[in-house]
């Protein structure tokens, strides 16, 4: 399972309030949430993001609220993967549960700039920066998590097994 896209680069402690501000939590519509994704940290994000693009951030990405609307907004925007030095724990759980691939790889984060084109192989955990010709190795997902991501989330994977 491979994805390729352009990097949108952010700093540390990107919280769920800037990923999807609470004023938009009066809906659970994925399309509506996507329209306001990253609005309070990067107002142009929703209009510039392309299908397959990749979010890259420093430490503690997704800190704050438990709102699943945050990874939902990112996934519904077309983002194929989030790479960070570290993730807040509820965000990490939520992202996997809804089938949004996320990788912790401090080395790769340090070597990526806004606009770089990156290819990621989830089976091997390889992150290749096509713009710079560099490669990095993240810990690949264990099979049960890869199953959840392939199925498009935990609920779908439970349904498939029923």
């Amino acid at each position, binding site marked *: 399972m491979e994805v390729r896209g352009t990097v949108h680069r952010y700093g540390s402690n990107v919280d769920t309030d800037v990923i999807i501000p*609470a004023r938009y939590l009066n809906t659970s519509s994925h399309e509506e949430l996507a329209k306001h994704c990253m609005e309070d940290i990067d107002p142009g994000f929703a209009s510039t993001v392309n299908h397959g693009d990749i979010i890259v951030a420093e430490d503690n990405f997704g800190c704050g609220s438990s709102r699943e609307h945050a990874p939902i907004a990112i996934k519904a925007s077309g983002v194929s993967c989030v790479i960070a030095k570290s993730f*807040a724990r509820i965000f990490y759980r939520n992202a996997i549960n809804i089938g949004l691939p996320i990788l912790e790889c401090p080395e790769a984060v340090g070597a990526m700039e806004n606009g770089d084109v990156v290819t990621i192989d989830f089976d091997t955990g390889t992150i290749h920066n096509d713009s710079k010709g560099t490669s990095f190795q993240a810990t690949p997902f264990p099979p049960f998590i890869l199953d959840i991501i392939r199925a498009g989330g935990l609920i779908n994977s439970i349904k498939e097994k029923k």
Partner: protein
Amino acid sequence: MGMTMTQKILADKAGLDRVSAGQLIKVKLDLVLGNDITSPVAINEFDKGGFDHVFDKNKIALVMDHFTPNKDIKAAEQCVQCRKFAGHMGITNFYDVGQMGIEHVLLPEKGLVVAGDCIIGADSHTCTYGALGAFSTGVGSTDMAVGMATGEAWFKVPSALRFNLTGTLPAHVGGKDVILHIIGEIGVDGALYQSMEFTGPGIASLSMDDRLCMANMAIEAGAKNGIFPVDEITIDYMTQRSGRSFKIYEADKDADYAQTYEIDLSRLQPTVAFPHLPENAKTLEEINGMDEKIYIDQVVIGSCTNGRISDMAQAAALFKGKKVAAGVRTIIIPGSQEVYRQCITKGFLEIFIDAGCVVSTPTCGPCLGGHMGILASNEKCVATTNRNFVGRMGHVDSEVYLAGPAVAAASAIAGYITGPKEASSWK
């Protein structure tokens, strides 16, 4: 090597003799919680999964507290969805306007959470119930959906940081000041994936409200949970409110802590977290030493962190016979109907209104920038809430300063950030 208090609860709930940090386990749940924002997403997932009943209609709590009384049509529709689901599933602990309070004020007060429980909630501040000696943690809506359907959740067993509390708090210093000090020390990811276990003789001097406030903000250090040992104060609190039996767990004497922090409560001061992270903690002494006063436009006293009766009492003691400064909108939000009623019977409501404050029905409202006190650009607010992220209470160019109720009330009267000791010299 022994187990931490958290690990002992998790081992028991997983049906195992022992667990160790990093181990993946599946545990039985005593309560699954959701609110009017997270439950709709969970109900959608529940339906998508094809589930037709909940694991136990008495072990689910749905609290309509975030955007209620309904702030707009979409918020109203979300509550309709929750109301229908609760009715259809026969959920007994459904709290709507009139009965509801802010979830983490309400559940302990109603006796729905007790020591030894294992609780998940689709709200990050679910970690509050660790104050009662329970394992309790925030999750997302999918985990809530699966929890409602199966009564189970999977966890990676956390390692723990130990905070050994000694001494007693000085006057006008409370649980909020302690936890802001700690987050200032360790940072917003200082306890990432870990438990924060509070121990030591200093705990005996902390009220239940202080402990609930401290456990509530464990998530602001990135923690999976915060937890307090069970003592006479906890037992009194639980037996007055709950008919449920409880179980007391204690950390092993040789429990393995990743790190131990020594906190002398007697040395702590009123503390304020500056924008835009809860780790930006400054003592009042540092603030008083700044070149310029920080003038404010709004004060909010309430929330799942500081919306309890002792918080209201601290605010009332300062507001009594005083007026809020011109231009400072002061919004007081008792955390539950019970807290609201006590504010009436104790005469606090009259004090607040005479001082020029507005008193709201329970709601999370302004804390997350929902309603009931949204900030315009460049406005500043002192709030007893738990987060001061960019745009948290409104415009991205507004600022939130986190503090306890005493600092918030003193600042409302002064018009700038100041403390209760300074206020005592005012006429």
